């Protein structure tokens, strides 16, 4: 294994992680709901009456983040190298896959592992494997 020390940003990664944990803690303790993004988006698409307001508010918070951030500070880099066809294929896979798995990086990865759920651990190990394998194939076998 070859670590890219120049790209390694332990301080901001840890601080950002703490904020993500804080937001998840806030939502479960204040609202009694799990901060799983794919579940929240799926819930909005299902138009569930009792959940609509908080799900919409949480999603608007996610969307408003960059705008509010940029009032105080320059936005961090968001570099997207994938072409539109790849982004479309990726979006379809992420959309269908997270709904079948009933969770994504937030619902299974953060909240599920925090609950010590074996089901979420299995999901997290599987999507991490999928991500590692895909990048290996794309970057090292296909050389893209």
């Amino acid at each position, binding site marked *: 294994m070859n670590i890219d020390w120049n790209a390694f940003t332990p301080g901001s990664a*840890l601080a950002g992680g703490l904020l*993500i944990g804080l937001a998840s803690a806030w939502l479960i303790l204040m609202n009694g709901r799990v901060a799983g993004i794919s579940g929240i988006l799926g819930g909005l698409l299902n138009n569930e009456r009792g959940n609509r307001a908080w799900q919409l508010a949480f999603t*608007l918070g996610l969307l408003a*983040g960059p*705008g509010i951030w940029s009032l105080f500070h320059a936005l961090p880099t968001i570099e997207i190298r994938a072409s539109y066809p790849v982004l479309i294929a990726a979006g379809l896979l*992420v*959309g269908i896959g997270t709904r079948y798995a009933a969770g994504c990086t937030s619902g*299974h990865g953060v909240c599920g592992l925090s609950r010590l759920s074996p089901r979420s651990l299995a999901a997290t190990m599987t999507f991490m494997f*999928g991500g590692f394998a895909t990048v290996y194939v794309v970057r090292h076998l296909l050389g893209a």
Partner: protein
Amino acid sequence: MNKATFSAFIAGLIFSFGLLLSGMANPEKVLGFLDLFGAWDPSLMLVMGGAIAVGLPAFALARKRETAVLGGTIQLPGKRALDKRLILGSLAFGIGWGLAGFCPGPGIVASGALEPGALVFAVAMIAGMLGFRLLERRAS
């Protein structure tokens, strides 16, 4: 807007800041983490570690309480089955994540930054979620 709705907005906002600060909202950074066999950037291990360090005590507390601070019951997932849907769904998600470097939260946050590529990803992701709904309806 009632208190619970405002609270959910604040949670979403803090989540968004966390994704931006940590580098998770930057697909190139995420792909650097997923490139285990290239020049590997381990930063995202710390994102997960930091999030779970706060999440562990919070969910332990949530399990002991019955009601949320702002009212209503605390709803924790009850499913335990390790089934085909969980594994194949997670695998498809992982492949999509590895293709573009976006998972759902960062896709929405980067869309909020009006990044064209993120908007394309987010629209496709929502189409995928609608596709899941159609398949589920047909199956039932």
